[in-house]
Structures are given as structure tokens and as C-alpha cells.
């Protein structure tokens, strides 16, 4: 028998007033958003003032929380919250968030310059890291506003579940990096091509850029970067702030997985990465666990008995039910093995399990039920 993982005490985390941020992360399709929403609701019903920040929720889940559009502002969820607690929820609008940063930091004229720049427009709506960056930016804003005592964040469905940790740093590195200096140099030198003023390495790179992306695009990028540079000074500093916020003791990372090979492998990877980055891990939530209701009857015995009944030509229904049960026992055993692998590699990580539901969650009652299961 492999060792048993310690139990993840969800209520202790939700009830601790020092817990200010919960980040739900994990690979796609494991029920991250549902987990985040269920945690937020449970916190609200235990007296906390909570806000759930979701990225791209499924339609009906969004509706369950009263969210009908992307408006980038937390809305109060009716019928959620007890003993003084309340729940707010919002869907992230990454372009709006980016626009707001620009508007907040630049004078109107310069803001206009940036907002209408084609490169900016493309960057703010399609850069594969923008969503991650803006989710973290929004998290920072919500935290600074101090309006809620608990923020639950659902991370974007990224290529890799780690993108949201890397995106701020990457954008920061770009905006503070050498390429920016190449790009801004001509503009600073009065708009004419000033590449020749730079050293040979710079000149070569700039030459390639002009050749490949063309002069007009290069000009758009230069204008954008120059305007942005004047506004921000240090994007990297901003990225570092967010990063430190995630490392703070009031933050709790909850890694979400399903009991399948790929999802558990990703969860493992994530746990290791969080440890490397010294990010506070609360534990692992395993969703959609199949639990046999008659566990004392083994798969082998059920199958053998079903065969026996078939051979005798009696109790056809019982034989079919026994085969169904055997399948369920096998599935449970496979899921158990996946979790055991995780726990042998990470024996100290607390785990909570949520049984598979016959149907998806569409309303607060469903979220409430998930919350109860998480805490039990």
C-alpha cells in the first residue's frame, strides 16, 4: 500500500482571515473554474467577502453566478453569502484591462496614441500571454483595492498551465530589454533610420527585422514601444510586484487535476514549479473521482460471478449489473493508481477529492454541493 496523502482542509483555508488570495491552477478541462467558483461561494457562505475572478468560464457556469457579459467589474452574486459574507464575480476582459492600464498611466493624448496603434491593438487582443498577464494585473488591482477580503482566481486555459507565472516576467523582460532599445532608437533619433548609429550586432538585427517584418510594421512597433516606454518606465517592476504578491503568505495555490495520467502529470509538474518559485501551495484538488458504492465487492469477484450467472443462464440483470460494477471498480483502481503516483512523489501535499457528478454544475446549488464535497 502506498502512503496516504494528508487531507486538504479547505475550510481552514477559507476561514483563515490571513488567506487573501486563492489561485486555482491546473491543466485544461479538469474543472478549475468550477472549483474556483465553489471555493468563492463557500467562503462567502462562511462569512467572508469574496470575489471570484474567472477567465473564460463555460456559459452555464457563468450564468450560475449571474455573469452575462464580459464587463471587467465584479458583480454581486444574488443568493450567495451568509452571516455577513458576500460573493462577487467577474469575467476578465483582457483588452479592457490593458486599455485601462494605459488610460490610468498616460496623459490623454499619449493614451490615444497607444490605443489606436495597430500593433497595440493586435497585442492587446491576441498575444498568447496577454490573457495571463492581464489576469495577474487584475488580481493585483483587486488586491490593492482592498474591497474584498478574499480573492479567488481561476487561471487561463494556457498552452501550459505555467504560462501565467511566466507571462508577466516575459512581457517585462521584453519591454525592458535590448530589443526595445533597438526599436526605440530610430524614433529617438528623430524618426530617420538610425540603425547605423548602433553597433554592428544591433545593426544586423535591425536589418533582419526590417527585411522580415517590413518598414511599416517596424514603425508601428517603434511608436508603440516609445509611447509605452514613456508611460511605464518599468514594466518589469510591475511584473515583479505581481510575482511577490503571489509569493506572499496570504496566498494559497490550489492545484486542480482529474485522476488521469496527463492531468496528474501536469499537477506534479506544477507542484514542483511552485516549490521552485517559493509559491505557497495549499494542496491538490482531484475532481471527478469515481467511487464505487459497493467497494467490498471486488472487480474480479463481480466479473467471475457475472460469468457464472451467464453460464447458468439465470439472473441476467444481476450479471449485467455486476459487469457494470466491475468496470467501475477497475476505473476506480486506475484512478487510485494515478493519485498514488502523485502522492509517492509529493507525500506532503494535502489532497481533497471531489466525486464525479452525473451532471455538470449549472447553478449555485450545484456549486454549493461541490464546496461541501471539497470540504468533507
Amino acid at each position, binding site marked *: 500500500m502506498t502512503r496516504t496523502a494528508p487531507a486538504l482542509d479547505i475550510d481552514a483555508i477559507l476561514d483563515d482571515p490571513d488567506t487573501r488570495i486563492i489561485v486555482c491552477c491546473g491543466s485544461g478541462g479538469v474543472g478549475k473554474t468550477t472549483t474556483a467558483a465553489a471555493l468563492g461561494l463557500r467562503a462567502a457562505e462562511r462569512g467572508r467577502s469574496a470575489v471570484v475572478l474567472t477567465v473564460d468560464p463555460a456559459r452555464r457556469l457563468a450564468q450560475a453566478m449571474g455573469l452575462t457579459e464580459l464587463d471587467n467589474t465584479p458583480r454581486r452574486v444574488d443568493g450567495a453569502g451568509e452571516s455577513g459574507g458576500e460573493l462577487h464575480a467577474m469575467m476578465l476582459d483582457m483588452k479592457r484591462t490593458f486599455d485601462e492600464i494605459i488610460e490610468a498611466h498616460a496623459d490623454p493624448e499619449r493614451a490615444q496614441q497607444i490605443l489606436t496603434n495597430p500593433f497595440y491593438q493586435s*497585442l492587446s487582443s491576441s498575444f498568447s500571454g496577454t490573457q495571463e498577464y492581464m489576469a495577474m494585473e487584475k488580481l493585483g488591482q483587486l488586491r490593492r483595492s482592498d474591497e474584498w477580503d478574499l480573492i479567488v482566481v481561476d487561471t487561463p*486555459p494556457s498552452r501550459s498551465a505555467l504560462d501565467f507565472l511566466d507571462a508577466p516576467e516575459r512581457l517585462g*523582460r521584453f519591454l525592458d*530589454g535590448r530589443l526595445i532599445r533597438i526599436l526605440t532608437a530610430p524614433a529617438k533619433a528623430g524618426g530617420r533610420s538610425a540603425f547605423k548609429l548602433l553597433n554592428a550586432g544591433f545593426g544586423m538585427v535591425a536589418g533582419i527585422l526590417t527585411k522580415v517584418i517590413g518598414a511599416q510594421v517596424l514603425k508601428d512597433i517603434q511608436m508603440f514601444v516609445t509611447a509605452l516606454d514613456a508611460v511605464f518606465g518599468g514594466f518589469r517592476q510591475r511584473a515583479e510586484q505581481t510575482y511577490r504578491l503571489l509569493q506572499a503568505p496570504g496566498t494559497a495555490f490550489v492545484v486542480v487535476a482529474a485522476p488521469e495520467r496527463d492531468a496528474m502529470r501536469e499537477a506534479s509538474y506544477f507542484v514542483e514549479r511552485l516549490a521552485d518559485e517559493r509559491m505557497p501551495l495549499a494542496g491538490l484538488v482531484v475532481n471527478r473521482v469515481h467511487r464505487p458504492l459497493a467497494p467490498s*465487492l471486488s472487480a474480479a469477484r463481480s466479473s467471475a460471478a457475472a460469468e457464472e*450467472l451467464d453460464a447458468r443462464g439465470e*439472473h441476467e440483470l444481476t450479471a449485467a449489473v455486476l459487469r457494470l460494477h466491475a468496470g467501475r471498480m477497475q476505473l476506480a483502481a486506475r484512478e487510485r493508481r494515478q493519485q498514488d503516483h502523485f502522492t509517492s512523489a509529493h507525500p506532503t501535499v494535502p489532497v481533497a477529492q471531489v466525486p464525479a457528478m452525473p451532471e455538470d454544475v449549472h447553478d449555485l446549488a450545484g456549486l454549493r454541493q461541490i464546496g461541501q464535497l471539497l470540504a468533507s
Partner: protein
Amino acid sequence: MSQPTGGRAGTNGEARDTDWDGVRLHVVSGKGGTGKTTVAAALALALAAGGRRVLLVEVEGRQGIAQAFDLPPLPYEERKIAVAPGGGDVYALAIDPEEAMLEYLEMFYGIKRVGKALTRMGVVDFATTIAPGLRDVLVTGKTSEAVRRRDKLGRRAYDAVVMDAPPTGRVARFLNVTQEVAGLARVGPIKNHADLVRGVFASPETAVHFVTLLEEMPVQETLDGIEELRSTGLPVGGVFVNMVRPAVLPEGVLQAAGEGRFDSAELALGLKAAGLTDGTADASAVAEALAREVTEHALRTELEKRERAALEQADVPRYDLPLLPDGADLAGLYELADALRAQCVA
């Protein structure tokens, strides 16, 4: 489901009609957790069966192919990873956007040995992670190059290419590369390159398939994805319903259980007859627990039926892939490939 589309039969395999004759690029998408990579791998094996050459590419740097075939991580290099039933070869390529960019610069501009300088300056970083859409153009560009490639004698390098594509929510944008790079290039070499790539994707030689489970969210995303593809003019392929469980209980029993009318008394007798229980009290306790399993199964089956009906709205060919009791290991991939061939996918 077999409907000859009037393309060519296999170049060197046996001739048989399949639903996707004439398709040379199979793009496989699906919501996270539906088994997209597994299905892409099985499809590659099925297409290669009978002596063809198939390239399986992945574009998201997850090393999913290596994991599916139980291999060490794949480099940026086309290499043979599996032999298909009846002697065909599956090659794999994990496309790395940085390598693809350097290769692109060399191929189209004759720019060589500048990788280090570009990396140091942050250009590679910029191009592959920040510049909107450029990363996607690089990986889709590499894929379409493999689709078009011919050897010196003018023969196709691959009979088919299977791409393990990004998830459903992003796939239309990913394939619609011209739109993706619009902010970066309205004219010029990148634009031309994107147009060329889009031409390959929008052609009848391409089919974009979706993998789904019979669950609400994956089905909804599949329907949305199909809609989105159609509106962008990209060719919709089939829907692969993955992890389908065999029907073990008769319809009448399921219906009764779904309505809460399943009688556990008969079950208790059956359990006793099978010698599985220890006395009457135990028999009825176990029977009740099993009856609850039956009820859950019935609810689940009903939901699956609803989702299946929803998928029918999309009016595209559907294929079922069985749930593998031991998970999608290497043997499982071959089993799924057989199932695909039996349904005339390949």
C-alpha cells in the same frame, strides 16, 4: 458513414474508400481532457496502415506525442516513431517555434548563423512569444511545408500529416493565420507567408476534426468550434466521440433506474444465487449499493444521449472511440487506430 469524396486512393497502400480520401492534412482539436493527443496519434497510425507515410506533428511544446508513444522527449526533427498495422510508418515532429523561426530565416532569406545574436537581443523571444500571431504562423507554416514537400522525383514526402492542434477554444484563430498576423503585417513577407499557409488550411485537402466526450462542456465547445470554423471558411472534418462506454444494461432497466424505479430485490436474489453475499441482510445492503450505481449510470447514460443528440445538429460525420479499460497506452493506440479504420476514417 463511409462516403467517398472522390479523391485518390492511397498512393502505395491498398485502395479502399474512406471518408477522407483526398485529405492530406488532418488537424485534430478538442477541449482539454478529451484525449485530443491520443486521438491524433491513433489517427496517424490508422492513416499509415497498409504502407503509407504519415507525419504526426505537435505544436504546443507539451511533448504529448512522446508521452503517448512512451518515448523520451522528441527533438525538432522528423523521426520515425511507430510502425502501423500492415507496414506503414508514422514519423513525428515536435515543432519548436524558435527553431522554426531560424529555419524560416535561413530558408527564405538565406540568413544563417545569427541564432545566438537574435536570441541575445530578445528577437527570438519577441517573435515566438510576444509578437501577435507570429508564433502560430511559424508552427503552422512548418506544418504546411511538410504537407507540400516533395522529394527530388516529385513524390510527396508524406501521404498525410496529422496535427495535434491547440484546444477547441483557440483552434479557429490558430488556423486563421492571416487574421492573426493582421496587426503585425498587412503587407510584406510575413503576410505573404501567412496567406500561403492559410491557403493550405482552407483547401479541400485539409480537414479539422474535433475530439469530444459525451459531456456538456466538451460538446458545447465542439459545436461552437464548428460554427467558428465555418464562419471563417475553414474545412470542418469529423467529430470523434472519445471514451465511449459499451452499453451493459438494457434500455428498459436504464429507464426505470433513471426514474428511480429500479428494484433492488431481484438484484439481491441474483447476488445470493451467485454466492456473492453473506446472508439476506448483506444481500440487500449490497444490492442497494449496486442499485445506486445503476441509477447513477442511468442518469449519466441519459445525459450522454442528450449530448449525442446535440452533436447531431452539427451535421458532420461522427465516429466513436471506445473507452480503454487500461487507459491510452501504446496497445490502446493501436486499438483506437483499428476502431478508426473500421469506421472508414482511414
